[in-house]
């Protein structure tokens, strides 16, 4: 019974691990961002669950002494949601720029392109680099 009562926390751990796994295992930058977002979002469940009181209402001042949920974790998560959205937006715009310059969003291919460029630089001596800097 106790395990069922903690179902929110199990969901948090499951989502966190799924997100983290996608983040590590996928080579596609968009999929990485999906994983990252899932990972960040899972934390929201942790915070919202810990503030919730069973049968509690919204914390509005009324007559009597109603049972209410702790609003602070909920407010904190509002901030974390904003941070998450900003991170995702920045990440996606970086992917757009990466796609513009590399014409791919696969990590392996980007890595190969970079390596080819480095080898090209070493091969063609340093003259070209000096020109580019001047």
């Amino acid at each position, binding site marked *: 019974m106790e395990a069922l009562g903690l179902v929110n926390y199990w969901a948090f751990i499951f989502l966190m691990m799924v997100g983290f796994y996608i983040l590590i295992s996928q080579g596609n930058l968009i999929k990485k961002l999906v994983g990252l977002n899932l990972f960040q979002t899972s934390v929201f469940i942790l915070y919202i669950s810990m503030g919730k009181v069973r049968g509690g209402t919204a914390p509005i001042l009324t007559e009597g002494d109603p049972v209410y949920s702790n609003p602070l974790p909920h407010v904190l998560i509002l*901030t974390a949601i904003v941070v998450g959205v*900003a991170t995702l937006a*920045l990440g996606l715009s*970086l992917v757009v720029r990466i796609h513009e310059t*590399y014409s791919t969003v696969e990590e392996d291919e980007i890595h190969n392109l970079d390596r080819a460029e480095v080898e090209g630089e070493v091969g063609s001596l340093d003259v070209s680099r000096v020109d580019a800097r001047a």
Partner: protein
Amino acid sequence: MTAHLPVLQVVIPLLAATLCAVARRGRIAWGIALATSWTAFWIAIQLLARVQAEGPISYALGGWAAPVGIEYRIDLVSAFVLVIVTAIGAVVTPYALKSVEREIDTTQIPLFYAAFLLCLTGLLGIAVTGDVFNVFVFLEISSLSAYSLIALGQDRRALTAAFQYLIMGSIGATFIVIGIGMMYVMTGTLNMADLSVLLAELGPNRTIAVAFGFLTVGISLKLALFPLHLWLPNAYTYAPSAVTAFIASTATKVAVYMLLRFFFTVFGVVFSFNVMRLNIVLLVLALLAIFSMSLVAIFQTNVKRMLAYSSGSDRVHDPRDQLGVGNGTHRGDSAPF
């Protein structure tokens, strides 16, 4: 006016950043950034002088007293960090004018200075605040602007470096939020001073140990503590020069400050070093890092990249200094700086 200096330290760069963002011309934005960074430096010196004369300053944001409201708390260590960060900002800005005009597209220059000032805001915020969730918010302000600053580098590899930094930095930030959440579950407070008292009363406890682990790993990712440093060399190498100069000398140092703040103020020396045995972990990692990073640095051909690896080995000296503190005195708190 002087009573509000702690909050002005953060608010002035924040507002100036929005001014920069709407400025039409790069030179105007640069002027704003220059004035702001020197003002911030002046405020930091004032604060340091006041802390030295009168002891720690506590500022209740919006008039809400400490455990309920957000408290800005400046002691000698944080005042020192403020002076270092603002001094580097003030030195980098005049030099940035030419360097930025050469390296960055003209239309993007005002936005560059806006991001620069936002980064400064975040770093200063981490140093002044006495509230753990506020630390996270300022950390993300500084990190997000740092990602975009690094992506402005001329080389296209700056983009992938910034992306890598974004992924690792966000993992770190999420770990920090989880750690903070667990501390809040156990104590019901977010104020650092309050936390340290309540955590000490609570004694060693599994949830707190897990929170400690999450926070340590999270902050270590942010400060590129060996072996979590993989994002750092690329990010420093391909960023615009002014950005490398600023971020390399401030962002990771502020993260070190944050780590010390959590180890010494929030968790306390006894828990961090006697119960969790962190000194042994850090000692081994520090030694490994010094040797491996220095070796890698020797074989680099790019100067900026060499410096990046060398800074990788330098920074992990810090935990070693910190060990001295763990073994005895409180006075060594500022040694790593």
